[in-house]
């Protein structure tokens, strides 16, 4: 595709990288959170549910600002992480964090529903066969909830591809480092005559996200058929 310049290609590649990592890294936490919300009763459950939904509710810029306060080099968490050599602020890793946080509620909702649909009687059966709770989870709950987990992950990926407000606020818009497709679109829209380039990038992100959605429908259907028997 000759119509994308090298800068744009870098943005596309970076977006894919950021979204992929955001999705993969948040998946375990997403599954754990969804499981806790679906199956456990504990004080503060509603609070956890609310916090998970926060990024959906807050203006993305506010979320980005909160991330900057917490995970920036001077933030309490960012400082600790930096001692371990993990720098998030103004790196693509930070873009992944921002995208992951913004996509988290969508992921958790989808996974929670699919976990709630797993029959607890099968989990009991597994326990009577000698499986301890973690094994019950790994061998029964997780595989049975797979269609929803995949759907949730791909939805999160699509959302991460489009995330902009929190990302630019938290990690700025540094070409090759944190300039994702969405940031690039935004930048192009600021420049006189940048509309064409912006449109091209919009197309790219639509195509990628649509492909992801289609894939999720397909995988979901196939896995559901397997889990449902046959």
């Amino acid at each position, binding site marked *: 595709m000759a119509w994308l310049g090298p800068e744009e290609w870098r943005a596309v590649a970076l977006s894919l990288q950021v979204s992929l990592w955001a999705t993969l890294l948040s998946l375990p936490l997403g599954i754990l959170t969804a499981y806790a919300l679906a199956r456990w009763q504990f004080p503060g459950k509603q609070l956890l549910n609310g916090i998970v939904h926060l990024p959906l509710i807050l203006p993305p810029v506010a979320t980005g600002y909160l991330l900057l306060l917490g995970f920036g080099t001077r933030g309490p968490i960012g400082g600790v992480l930096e001692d371990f050599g993990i720098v998030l602020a103004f790196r693509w890793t930070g873009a992944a964090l921002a995208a992951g946080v913004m996509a988290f509620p969508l992921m958790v909702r989808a996974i929670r529903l699919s976990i709630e649909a797993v029959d607890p*009687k*099968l989990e*009991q*059966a*597994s*326990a*009577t*066969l*000698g*499986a*301890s*709770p973690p*094994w*019950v989870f790994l*061998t*029964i709950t997780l*595989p*049975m909830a*797979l269609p929803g987990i995949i759907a949730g992950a791909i939805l999160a990926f699509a959302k991460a591809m489009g995330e902009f407000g929190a990302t630019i606020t938290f990690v700025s818009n540094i070409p090759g480092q944190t300039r994702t497709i969405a940031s690039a679109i935004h930048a192009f829209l600021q420049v006189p005559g940048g509309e064409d380039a912006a449109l091209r990038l919009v197309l790219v992100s639509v195509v990628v996200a649509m492909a992801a959605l289609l894939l999720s429908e397909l995988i979901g259907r196939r896995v559901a058929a*397997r*889990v*449902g*028997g*046959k």
Partner: protein
Amino acid sequence: MLEVALRHDFADFTLDARFEAPAGITILFGRSGSGKSTVVNIAAGLLRPDAGKITSGGRVLLDTRNGVCLPPHRRRLGYIFQEGRLFPHLTVRQNLRYGAWFAPRGAAREESGRVVELLGIGHLLDRRPGALSGGEKQRVAIGRALLSAPQLILADEPLAALDEARKSGILPYFERLRDEVSVPILYVSHSASEVARLATSVVALEAGRIVRQGSAAEVLSDPSVLPAGAREAGAVLTARVLRHHADGLTELAAGGVPLFLPRLAQAPGSEMRLRVAAHDVILSRDRPEGLSALNILPGTIAELRPGDGPGAIVALDTPAGRLLARITRRSAAALGLAQGGSAHAVIKAVSIAPADIGAGPRAGETRDLIPE
């Protein structure tokens, strides 16, 4: 040996039970809501009772007084559920292997080939549960429980969801289990046929309390503890297959008396259990002649127990064992039946339902291995 002593209160139900289950099948018998599933679920660790103690082969599974309550996965169970509960995302083979995976290394375990053969599920191994019929599912569920190297097998109405044909296809597997597997099996049922065919011992529950405990023959002969009352009363006879006749009948010997039944599958020499329902037995003062019924057993009236309806239960000691007959009080009077008197029991060959005929050691006796 499984030893159980429990107390548990639900909103409007109290369970208070103490019993022992030896090797073989102990059937928990009782009407709906009598607490059978509650007992089994407590034994499985799925429900924690208010108070109680359970030991299985000497291992303490539960002891509320000392705060012991092993979680299900540490009880070494094989639980066969009414609905199978096979894992739909695993193949039959993987379902069968599932429990073995978690069994302790050194555990004495059934050889999987033997179990697969015992249950006749060899051709299903690569299918998924979704592609099995109800009866096949249940056989796989039995296999799965067996192969988890259990020290206690629990089965909660494993046949209730199946129709008659499928039930009779699976009962023989439980008979084999009883005779070939050495761990105690706690089996919930409200079917007199199942009790008659399977039970090594029976625990009859009624509203959370044990009202009777003993051999199948003892329990089934007491209408007062039967869920369906007198309609289910019957005797359990044991007999040995003598020979198969050319006209399609099988001759059995029961205490020296011949019994004729429509052809059985078992080879001559096999030990059988028959349930003879009390309402299928006609009594005659004298030996009747010219009747189409083939089996006529002389006996002595051991007991004559009037029921609450128009009926009475007559216990007749015959050479084949004690038989029960449910007749009207009017007939009893007309025939002048009385305790100590003699009478003949008339049983049609075809009136014993196939579901009531099973292979197995003597009812109420301790297990003794019979190779097939």
